[in-house]
């Protein structure tokens, strides 16, 4: 599987977002990128998409440490989105935390496919795409 249609970045750090976007552009990761600054924004945005019948992004890159609603809380709320399509969404955690507790906790969420340590490089994104092909 090659380029995907749309992806989503949920992160409050503008520098991190800049880096991810730059890497995406390099490898032509997707056609559209949606960015949310925290979990709450993301939930609200995704709910809107479902309501408007727009397909959800197939890959979500989720930061953990965010104001208002952090990555964990987003995961708890994401399951509740009333749409079967959520199963077609692959969520990757992107975090600068090297705290092993965070890594272990991420494994507890079946929704989470992998834990990617920041900074995100184009090689990381390429691996996501090849993961997706195995999917």
């Amino acid at each position, binding site marked *: 599987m090659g380029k995907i249609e749309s992806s989503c970045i949920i992160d409050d750090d503008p520098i991190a977002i800049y880096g991810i976007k730059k890497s995406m552009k390099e490898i032509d990761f997707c056609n559209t990128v949606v960015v949310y600054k925290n979990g709450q924004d993301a939930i609200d945005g995704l709910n809107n998409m479902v309501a408007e019948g727009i397909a959800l992004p197939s890959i979500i890159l989720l930061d953990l440490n965010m104001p208002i609603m952090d990555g964990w809380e987003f995961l708890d709320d994401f399951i509740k989105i009333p749409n079967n399509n959520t199963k077609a969404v692959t969520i990757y955690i992107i975090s600068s935390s090297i705290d092993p507790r965070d890594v272990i906790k991420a494994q507890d969420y079946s929704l989470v496919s992998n834990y990617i340590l920041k*900074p995100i490089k184009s090689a990381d994104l390429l691996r996501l795409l090849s993961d997706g092909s195995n999917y």
Partner: protein
Amino acid sequence: MDTLTRTITIEEAPIAIATLDNNLCFINCSTPWQQEFISPDKEIFGKSFFDVVPSTPRLFRSVLENSFSIDDNIVEEQKHIMPDGSNKWYQWSIKPWKETDGTIGGLIITCTNITKIKRAKDLLIAAENVAKMGGWDLDMITNTIHWSRITKEIHEVPLDYVPCLETGINFYKEGEHREKITELIQKAITKGEEWDIELQIVTAKGKELWVRAKGMPEFVNGKCVRLYGIFQDIDKKKKAEIKNAQIKERLDLATEVANIGIWEYNLLKDELEWNDEMFPLFGVKRKDFKGNFESWKATVHPDDLERCLQEFDMAVSGIKDFKTEFRIVHPDGTVKHIKANAGIFKDDEGKIIKMVGTNWDITEVVNTQLKLNKSEESFQGSFKSSAVGMALVAKDGSWLDVNETLCLSLGYSRKELLQLSFQDITHPQDLEKDLSQLQRLLDGKVNSYQLEKRYFHKKGTIVYVVLTVTAVKDIEGNISHFISQVVDITAKIEAQKKSEEFLELTKSQNNSLLNFAHIVSHNLRSHSSNLSMLSNYLIEEQGEIEKREIETMIVNASESLNETVAHLNEVVQISTEAEGQLQAVCLNEIVKNVEKNISALLQQKKVECQISIDQSIKVKGIHAYLDSVLLNLFTNSVKYSSPNRIPKISIQATKSGNFIILNFRDNGLGINLERHGKKLFGMYKTFHQHEDSKGIGLFITKNQIEAMNGKIEVESAVDKGTLFRITLVAA
């Protein structure tokens, strides 16, 4: 010649006899007469009768009155008072003698001294009266019975009562008494046997009486013609005898059963008598017993002998009763404890001649007493010196005795404690469980119980103890009092509390460390990763505009890193600086001061502030930290106030024990605690869409409060308001 012959005859008569002429002058008398009334050498012939006989027999009066015209011999007994004042009884017999011509020539007088007979008879009557002894006589031929006056009195019948054999027998009590007398009378009549027996009669008035009946038969030609005997009232004696017999029997039984030895010692003869019980008591064989003082002395334990002899001497000299205890040694070496009591007997001159006493074995008692003393001693010893608090407690809970350790634990003197009950000093929350356990003990459901409880020290502080209560029963098995053992575990409990506090502190410090580690692993790393990423981009980037953009981002990332490092530094300083800088701070002043400093902000946002803190409330804190904490709370309340209502802040403080509780309440946006509760005081956690949210304020606040040994808690409802409760140590 005739006369001479006659004269000689009279003189030689063996009885006192005399002849008188018509003038009542002596013609002649026999030698016994002469001896009775006049000295043998004196001449009696021709002397007047009245001169010779001390007082004239009454008989003579009638003889003289009748001019000697008496037909026959007349006899009379008369008492005479002799010239020396003594009494004599004579039986007189007088008869006239006639001349050959038939005329009366004079009188023949015989006189018998019956004084002795008379006296014996009087004595008999007196004895009969005194001994209540009567006589009886049964004529078998005529079947008539004669009872003497006393016999009638004993039967309580009138003096004119006439008994017969059958009525006589019927007076005996029906049953064995009547059967016995019947049998005895039959034997007497048929076999001639006498009887002497003690039986009961029932008197005419119905009184039961013990009598002694004695009877003898008289036989003529092999046939019993008469029964006679005596009859004696022995009721008192018999009853006393019966009673004595009972007492003696009882006493014998008692001494035998109780192993009481009885001894009697004759001081004059040095004779010692022992009853049967004495021999086994002293382990001495009867054949080896010499029966003197020495034989007793030999048994006494050498260590007690001197004292015993002294006590014996004191008893003999009347100084002190012989009441003592001593040890004896049996021939086989066994040592026994003997208790001895003795009385003394004196002769007419008051000299002590005899001692009678009792001995009994008290070895068991003494040994038990010794054991008791030992256990009492050891109890007293352990009671006094025990490191455990001990008390004897009455059934009503009052202290009967307390030891030093308990006094120390509770802070009261012994005297003070004894005036209190355990209820008085028991923590009210622990009283009920103690009382219910005590009730179980009183009900006999358990013999002892143990519980952890609290007392109040005299100073009012709490004393933690482990209490063990054991019931003590009296000889009848009823609970007499309790023994309480009180192990003071206050130090242990306090140490435990302290270690819990330490644990809590360690936990919080550990949390801080974890938090710190997380901050380092995440917050610092996110900046460093950004920086490294941006640096790479900068190197690779060709476009000038792009490059400048990246450079700006690098600057921002550096600043963020700087800021984070500064925050971390602040936190580290809070934790390290607070140590030893705590001082008493007036809470009201701090709050008012902060309010004043941000009055411009408060006015701008039209915040209504209500501060109610007593001036006297002081906390242990650091001025700058308290300023920072309150400033942060004020600004938070203003920052997260609801746009839909006038912001209100109310601040109040109360004292609770050693702590001051500060309630800081607002009516702002509130926090969803279910969601954010755990992260509320974390670093870089924000929960509101607000440009100023940095997620550092409450993190710093919490660290500052904890540095002052306080804590911060939160209650909140979304769109209602938030309450921060800060607990600080009172100064």
